[in-house]
């Protein structure tokens, strides 16, 4: 925990304070990480989001049909995706794919003395390794969430259009009317907070690996478990704050 807090403080220093003292972080590695963390995860995110959209619409159809309220299916798909399922499920995908990869990569660098070599070259590992990954995650997880939301809504549309009596315009109208901009923003805020948690937990696990290949394996597993737990608990807290506090 002490290491985790220290990493967060160090990150804040390198992002917000150091640039004013002339120590800018390099922007090229941020884009490289954005491709790795975000762009390459897009197909997986799309498949997951489409499945979720389809499932939500089918479940809603099943329940709402008996009440004669099929017209509310787009509402349910839209709101559930924007507020909950979008941010959470896409964070789960990113934790499994990119969070674990970051922990394993930094862990391997630690055990093969690469991190120590950086320090000896007077290159701060947080500035050189963590800042690009952090900024990339902070941009790409919300971006992936927006992308996933679109695909999920497309999944809902596919069910409504081809198995129920919706036409495309009707589905879009209903979906757009049901959602408020705040529903989208709340999902984005959740996504950004998840991004912070996921990448700091993964980097912290990687940077504190001890004991060779076995240590790297343990750190990777524990980073995934910790990030999932932290993300789900934080989701409950944020949902409480956004929708039930007022």
């Amino acid at each position, binding site marked *: 925990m002490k290491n985790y807090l220290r990493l967060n403080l160090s990150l804040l220093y390198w992002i917000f304070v150091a640039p004013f003292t002339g120590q800018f972080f390099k922007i090229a590695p941020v884009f490289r990480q954005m491709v790795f963390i975000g762009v390459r995860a897009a197909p997986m995110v799309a498949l997951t989001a489409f499945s979720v959209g389809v499932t939500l619409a089918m479940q809603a159809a099943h329940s709402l049909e008996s009440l004669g309220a099929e017209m509310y299916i787009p509402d349910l798909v839209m709101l559930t995706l924007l507020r909950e399922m979008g941010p959470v499920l896409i964070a789960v995908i990113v934790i499994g794919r990119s969070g674990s990869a970051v922990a394993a*990569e930094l862990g*391997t*660098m630690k055990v*093969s*003395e*690469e991190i*120590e*070599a*950086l*320090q*000896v*070259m*007077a*290159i*701060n590992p947080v500035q*050189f390794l963590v800042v690009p990954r952090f900024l990339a995650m902070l941009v790409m997880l919300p971006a992936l969430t927006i992308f996933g939301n679109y695909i999920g809504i497309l999944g809902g549309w596919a069910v409504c259009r081809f198995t129920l009596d919706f036409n495309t315009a009707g589905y879009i109208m209903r979906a757009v009317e049901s959602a408020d901009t705040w529903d989208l923003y709340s999902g984005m805020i959740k996504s950004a907070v998840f991004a912070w948690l996921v990448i700091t937990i993964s980097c912290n696990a990687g940077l504190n690996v001890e004991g060779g290949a076995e240590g790297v394996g343990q750190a990777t597993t524990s980073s995934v478990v910790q990030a999932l737990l932290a993300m789900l608990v934080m989701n409950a807290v944020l949902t409480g704050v956004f929708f039930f506090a007022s």
Partner: protein
Amino acid sequence: MNNKGEAIIEVNNLVRRFGDRAVLDELSFNVHRGETLVIMGGSGCGKSTLLRHLIGSMKPTSGSVSLFGEEITEMKEREIERVRLRFGMLFQSGALLASLTVGENVALPLLQHTNKSVDEIEEIVREKLQMVGLTGFENLKPDEISGGMKKRVGLARALALDPELLFSDEPTSGLDPIMTAVVDQLTQKLTQGSHMTAVVVSHDMTSAFRIATRMIMLGHGSIVAEGTPEEIRNSPNAEVQQFINGRADGPIPLNLSQEDHKDHQLVRPRPFRGARLRFHHKNP
């Protein structure tokens, strides 16, 4: 002792304990400008721990380490970075960044710490790689070259900023005899020509005697012998003679025969028996 130049490294009463075990026990020595100090000693005698204290990546239990006249044991990480810009370090494994090419690895310190143009940096990278006999390897990744080559790239990277002081951890292990001679010659040229100071941890006695201007032998956490290569070669100390001549038998207990093992068991049976009894008591 060579007292011609100013002291670049001053180590005073350096102690490092892991639990009750003192890995470094009251070590004191100086390294002067232009010297090549070779630190030798058996496996586990504290050579690597000493090196880590000299580069500031480990803090001692007590004692002091000064580099270029600045005490580094009390420094914060950001203060040590300033001192680290003045020295280079060659790691035993090379410690190249696997995600970067050979050229990018050598260029890394230059990109991070200088305002040189890309063309200038490329020129320096070519020059440094040429020095270690690796011209044309710029675009390969570390996993595409051999262990010895990685080490030479590590040396090129350590020399990228033209440091005043070079630390090398086993610079010649894994190199063929010709490449060992090339690396030795390079170290000699750098220490003589540009007054660079070198601290080399080595097991390779041929190489050690070739490059050293002074040698220290560590054993049991303290200095067993210290002197010029000639003094070490003629040392009356039996441990030194056993080590430099590579003899299996001698005062350094490295290898126990079966008979020795039985003797040890007879002399010190109690901890084992006690442990076994406790174990049986808990788990009948």
